[in-house]
C-alpha cells in the first residue's frame, strides 16, 4: 500500500480503494490556514482599530507557514517540495491537460497547483514580515520589529502590507476557482481528500 503513494505519473486506472494522499499534518495545516487567513484578513480590513487580534492571527499564520516549510523538507512524500515543485516544462505539459473533461488522477500536488503552494507560502511569508516591520504611527498597532528598523523602512513595510494582502486574497480566490473547475469540468473532487486524506479518483 505504501508503494502506491508514488507520483501516479502514469495514467493508472482509478484505484477502487481510496489511498491516503494527504498526511494529517498537511490537512491540519491547510484548514488551520484557511481559518487563520479568513480571520486575519477580515480583522485587518474590517476589524476594530485596536488590532490585537489581527496581530495574533498574523503570528498564527507565521507559525503555520514555518511549519509547512519545515514539513516540505522532512514530511512524507506528497508534502515534500522536491517531489512536487517542477520546472516550466512539466508545468506547461500539465497545463495542456487542463481543458480535458476528465479527472487528472493526480496523487498529490500537480505541477500547476505547486505554483500556488509555493506562491502563497512566499506571499504569506512576505506579508508576515511586512506586518512585523510596519509602523502605522498610531502607537498601538506598531509591528513588534518596527523599532529595529528606520521609520522609512517601517513605512515601506506598511505600504506593502495591504497590497500583499490583496495578492494573497486573489491567490485564494484563484485556488477556490480551480477547485470548482476540477469539480464541475473535470469531475474531480479535491475537497474531500483534503478532509479525509483519501482520494479514490
Amino acid at each position, binding site marked *: 500500500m505504501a508503494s502506491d503513494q508514488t507520483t501516479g505519473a502514469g495514467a493508472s486506472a482509478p484505484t477502487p480503494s481510496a489511498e491516503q494522499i494527504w498526511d494529517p499534518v498537511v490537512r491540519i495545516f491547510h484548514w488551520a490556514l484557511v481559518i487563520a487567513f479568513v480571520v486575519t484578513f477580515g480583522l485587518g480590513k474590517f476589524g476594530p482599530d485596536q488590532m490585537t487580534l489581527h496581530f495574533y492571527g498574523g503570528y498564527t499564520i507565521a507559525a503555520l507557514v514555518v511549519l509547512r516549510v519545515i514539513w516540505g523538507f522532512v514530511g512524507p512524500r506528497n508534502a515534500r517540495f522536491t517531489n512536487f515543485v517542477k520546472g516550466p516544462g512539466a508545468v506547461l505539459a500539465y497545463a495542456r491537460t487542463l481543458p480535458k473533461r476528465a479527472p487528472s488522477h493526480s496523487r498529490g500536488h500537480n505541477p500547476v497547483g505547486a505554483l500556488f503552494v509555493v506562491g502563497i507560502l512566499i506571499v504569506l511569508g512576505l506579508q508576515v514580515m511586512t506586518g512585523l516591520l510596519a509602523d502605522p*504611527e498610531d502607537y498601538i498597532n506598531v509591528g513588534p520589529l518596527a523599532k529595529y528598523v528606520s521609520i522609512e523602512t517601517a513605512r515601506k513595510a506598511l505600504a506593502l502590507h495591504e497590497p500583499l494582502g490583496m495578492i494573497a486574497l486573489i491567490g485564494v480566490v484563484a485556488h477556490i476557482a480551480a477547485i470548482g473547475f476540477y469539480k464541475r469540468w473535470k469531475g474531480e473532487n479535491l475537497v474531500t481528500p483534503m478532509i479525509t486524506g483519501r482520494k479514490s479518483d
Partner: protein
Amino acid sequence: MMRKFMTAALATAMILPAGLAVAGGPEDIAKARIGYYRLLGLEMDGLAAMAKGEIDYDAEAAKGHAANLSVLTQYSPKGLFAPGTSNADLPGQTRALPVIWENMAAMGEKGAAFRSAVAELAAVAGDGREALGPAVGKLGGTCKACHDDFRAKDY
C-alpha cells in the same frame, strides 16, 4: 499716540516679510502640519510606552502628556489644512490625501473622535497603568481610523 503707531508700523514692517517667508507657501503649511502631528506623537509615544510597560508608569508624567494633548486639542488645525497642500499638490512632502479636502466633514468627525478620546484619557491618566491602557488603546484607535482614510501609507 503717534509714537505707538510708529512702533506698531515698524514692527509690522519687520515681522510681516519674515512671517511670509517662514509660513507663506503650501510647503511650509505641510511642514507645520507634520510638526503638529509630531507634537501629538511625542506625547502619545510617552503614554503608549507606559501603557505597554516599556517604561514604568509615572502618574505625574502621564498627566503631563495628557495635559499637553489636551492643550493641542484646543489648537484649531484649520490653517494646517489650507487648500493646495495635499500629497497630490506636494508629492514627497506630505501624505495628506486629496480626499481630506473633498470630504472635510468626514475628516472633522475623525478629529472629534480624537478630541473626545483625549478628554477620556486625561480623566484617567493619573489613575494607574490599568486605567491608562484602555484609554491609550482607544486614543491610538482614533489615530489609526483617520490614517486609514486620509493619509497615504508612504510618501
